[in-house]
Structure formats: C-alpha cells, structure tokens
C-alpha cells in the first residue's frame, strides 16, 4: 500500500479514536460563530455582507488552532525520528499530514456551513461556495502544516503559532472573503479572487513540499 495513504489512514484513525481533539476544535468553531452572533447581533440588520467575513475568520482561527497540533502526537511519543528513518520520503509524510488536516478541517467547516445556514437563514451549501471553501482550506492548511514543525517548545509554540501564521494568511483571508461574497451574489468589484485563492493554494502547497524536508531534517 502507498505509504502516504497508510499515514493518512493511521492519522485519521487516531484522530477518530481520540475524540477530545477534534471535538474541542468543533466546539470552538461553533462557539466562535455564536460569539459573532452575539457581538454583532447578526439578526437585526442586513447581515449578508458580514457573513463571509464571519465564516472565514472562524475557519482561520479553528484551522490555526487545530493544525498547530499536527505533530504533537509524534513529539509526545518521539515517533518523528523513527518516521524520518523509515523508508518514506519526507514529502509523503508532509502530504499525509496535510491531507489529514484538510479532511478533518473540511468536516468541521461543513458542520459550520450547515449551522450558519440554519442560524442566518442564508443558503451556504452552494456548489460555488463549497468550491471556494475547499480551495481556501487547502491553501491555509498546507501553510500551517509546514509551520507546525516549530519544534518541541510547546509553551512558545502555542503562543507564537498564530502570530507566525496569521500574517502570512492575510492574502488568503482577503481572497476567501471576497470570493465567498461573490459566490453569495454580493457586489464586490471585479477582481479575480478565485484565481488569487487558487494561486495561494498552489503556492503554499509547493512551498510546503519543498521546505518540509528541510524543516524536519536532523
């Protein structure tokens, strides 16, 4: 069997069995969505222009929160060195981890879209919007998975990780919000936001593939 698929299966299996992790990410996502509703009173006024921003900030915070822990299990049990010694290319390890993250994040985002469809009475589960969300998720997860190799200094990492990741993700946030607005028929001008989103996804995946082997080399 392809080693990358084995890694993905292993990671997904472990994620599924240890529910505390993704359940806390999911509850964090739902709670931040509700916090936005309380903070901006999202039922009173014309809320449609605000919703893409609300969704994408929630996605980014959950994504950064969840993927900063990508290699936590490997570090806790000192498996990363063994994994590097195994006859698997580091690229496969990276791709496996990134795909696992993308799959679990997409599941969470799907729940969020469903929840906001009910909460805000707006159609979120359209093909175009889901396409935007998938491209954007691939874009930011490939970057945060690369950055999550920060090392074992857990205290410094949990504080620093958002500070490192979020400025790099600003182009993605802008493009994602604008592309989602376009998908929801909001007037936002004519810039090719989906193109920028796709370029960002390709760029971050490429830099992840190229730089991850250097990041974990001993």
């Amino acid at each position, binding site marked *: 069997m392809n080693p990358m698929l084995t890694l993905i299966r292993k990671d997904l299996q472990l994620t599924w069995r240890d529910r505390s992790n993704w359940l806390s990410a999911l509850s964090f996502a739902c709670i931040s969505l509700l916090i936005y509703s309380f903070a901006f009173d999202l039922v009173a006024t014309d809320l449609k222009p605000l919703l893409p921003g609300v969704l994408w900030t929630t996605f980014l915070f959950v994504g950064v929160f969840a993927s900063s822990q990508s290699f936590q299990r490997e570090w806790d049990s000192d498996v990363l060195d063994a994994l590097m010694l195994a006859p698997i290319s580091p690229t496969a390890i990276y791709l496996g981890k990134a795909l696992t993250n993308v799959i679990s994040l997409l599941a969470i985002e799907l729940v969020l879209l469903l929840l906001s469809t009910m909460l805000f009475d707006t159609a979120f589960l359209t093909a175009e919007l889901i396409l935007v969300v998938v491209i954007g998720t691939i874009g930011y997860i490939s970057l945060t998975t690369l950055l999550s190799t920060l090392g074992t200094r857990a205290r410094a990492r949990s504080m620093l990780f958002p500070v490192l990741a979020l400025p*790099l993700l*600003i182009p993605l946030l802008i493009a994602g919000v604008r592309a989602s607005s376009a998908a929801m028929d909001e007037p936002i*001008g004519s810039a090719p936001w989906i193109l920028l989103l796709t370029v960002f996804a390709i760029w971050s995946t490429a*830099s992840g593939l190229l730089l991850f082997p250097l990041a974990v080399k001993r």
Partner: protein
Amino acid sequence: MSATSPDIPEARPSRLQALFTFLLRAVLPVYQRRWVLLPALTGVMMMAMLVGAVLAAPREVVEGDVQRLMYLHVPSATIGTYFSFLITAVASAIFLMSRDIRWDAVARAAATVGVLFTIFTLATGAIWGKPIWGVYWSWDARLTSTLVLLLIYTAYLLARSVAGPNDEQAARYTAIFALVGFLDIPLIHFSVDWWRTLHPQRIIFNTRPAVPNEMLFVLLVAFLAITFLMLWLIALRSDSEQLAQRTDRMRMYLDQRGNN
C-alpha cells in the same frame, strides 16, 4: 625534503576558478575595510542628504515643507525595507543549504534592520499623511502591505529570539519562515492592491509636470545614503550576533569542562 610530491600534479585553476579568485581579490579588500568605509560613506552621504533635503531642494508648491519627508520615506520604503528583507531571504536560503550558523546571524541582522526601516517608513508616512490626506493612517494598499510585512518580520524575530543563538533547529525553522514570508510578498501585494488603493502613484516616471532635477538629485543622494546606512547597520548587527554565537559556544564549552 622536497616541497611537493611528484605524484600530485600542480593544480591548474580553471577559468571559472580564476574569475572567482579575481573577484575575491577585488572584493575582499573592500570587505575587510568595511568598518572604515561604511561609516565614512554613510556619514558623508547622510550629511549630503540632510543638506539637500532641507536646504537645496526646492519647496514643493502644493504640499509645502512636509513634502521634504519624501527624501527619507521613499528610500526607506524601497531600499531599507525590501532590500533588507531580500537579504534576510537570501541569507536564510544560504543557511539552509550550507548549515553554517553564521548565515543565520546575517539573516537576523537584516530582518532587524528591515523592521526598523519599516517602522520608520510607517512613521514618516503617518506624519506626512496627517496634513496631506487629513489622516495618519488609511487602509490603502501600500500602507496595508507594509504593515503586513512588519507583522511577518516581527513574528520572525520573536520566533528566533525565544531560542538560543546557536539553536540550529530554531534557526532552520525561522529560516524557512523567512523564505515563506518573502515569497508571500507578491501575494500580499496583489490581494491588498485589489482590496483598495489610495496611495500616490510613483512620481518619478509618470507625472506630467516633471519633477525638478534638483529634487531628483537629492532623492538619488538619499537613496545612496539609506543604502549605506542599511548596509552598515546590517554589518554591525550581524557581527554582534556572531559574537553572541561565539560567546554562547564558549560558555557551553566551559560548562562542559566544569562538569567533568
């Protein structure tokens, strides 16, 4: 006692090696004298720039004296910021390939100086913006991308400073971050450019009533002055970082000897 063994033929330098030696001979004396050349050149050019900007350059008709900030602002924004961050990226790439920790010191030094110039650029821009635009800050494309650059490289310096000067793991990680951050600049630029734009366009090439020659000359002097200042600051900073690395290594060595 023969000086050379007969078995080993004398190495004949290839053309590329000869060229390299020639270049090294040309550059090395300049590099070795950097502690004389850089402060001298920086001092002279900074003096010339100040005299030029305050006295020699004509007063701008519409904007008045506050326009004189341009001679500091434009070179700081271009050379001081982007060129420093380019040096950070190049030094990080060399560090990743060669694993020589001294290149990490160069990268950190250039990032520090770049952050300094970014703050200076934003500050002079704000001082200029209040009388001209009526606000200190606006979410214009160039201002926003400069601010994002500041955030990225402050995060870089933070991440690097939580680890010791010789921590190779941390150095490798932050080098990767510096490369990703530098390659992110075009994406940031496009995204915020499409997001909104208000900044005055470049004046050197595309204004109809041409900029007077005196102004252009002072601006050229300012560019040179800021370039030398940046190089001098980076040289100072990277030498002090390398000294910190050596001190750290010595301390580790002494600790080991003390324990035995």
